[in-house]
């Protein structure tokens, strides 16, 4: 399993892999959904620090998890997205419905 998962209280932080495509997305999605169920997760932080490639499969992961969290009154956030990832997040409209940070949230560089 590529990438890492950290849980603190009911928050899940997902370290996204280097390449997010349909292949890697299948694994990430099933891992996250298992962890949400098992730990009553209420908010998710997607950390794109190591990610250099993403296609629309990544958007599928984000929107799917957003719906789940939103339904339960929780939140989803994206951090440390590089310019090429931000281009894709912006184009897909993801930036309109969830908080996306270039760095860490404290640096308040929300785009």
């Amino acid at each position, binding site marked *: 399993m590529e990438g890492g998962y950290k849980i603190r209280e009911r928050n899940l932080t997902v370290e996204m892999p280097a390449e997010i495509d*349909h292949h890697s997305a*299948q694994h990430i999605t099933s891992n996250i959904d298992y962890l949400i169920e098992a730990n009553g997760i209420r908010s998710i932080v997607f950390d794109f620090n190591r990610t250099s*490639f993403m296609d629309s499969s990544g958007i599928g992961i984000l929107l*799917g998890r957003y719906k789940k969290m939103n339904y339960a009154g929780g939140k989803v956030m994206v951090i440390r997205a590089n310019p*090429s990832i931000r281009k*894709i997040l912006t184009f897909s409209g993801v930036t309109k419905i969830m908080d996306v940070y270039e760095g860490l949230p404290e640096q308040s560089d929300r785009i």
Partner: protein
Amino acid sequence: MGISNEMRLEFDSRSCNEGFARVSVAAFMTQLNPTLEEVADVKTALSEAVTNSIVHGYEGAIEKIVVECRIEDDTFCVDVTDHGIGIENIEQAMEPLFTTKPDSERSGMGFAFMEAFMDSIEVTSKPNEGTKVSMKKKIGCGKSKFER
């Protein structure tokens, strides 16, 4: 100058080949001295087309996908072909957010990404025969190419 270089890549419709196809196409494209952004754009568009052949065209069955690349002057052309189920209504399929597989985490943005990141896209398809997606992108916008 006409067509100056071409390649054809045929591989199994396994999701583990998506990354390999992107690397191959990006490596072939380097001859045009693209910017990193141009390479990223082509990789994204290719990834969408190849994923569609795997997910929609063959619906998970293991068959062949063909990726053909041509360099025509400063234009990079890439065609992705499958012999899968084909598309009934191409216009509808290309509408943003339209997807026939909403429950399997498809966002319906594949074609929109291809259109956004390439200069042109042409889709030909016939139900039960397969689908061909032809995309083009001008590289370098007049910047000099050189043979090393």
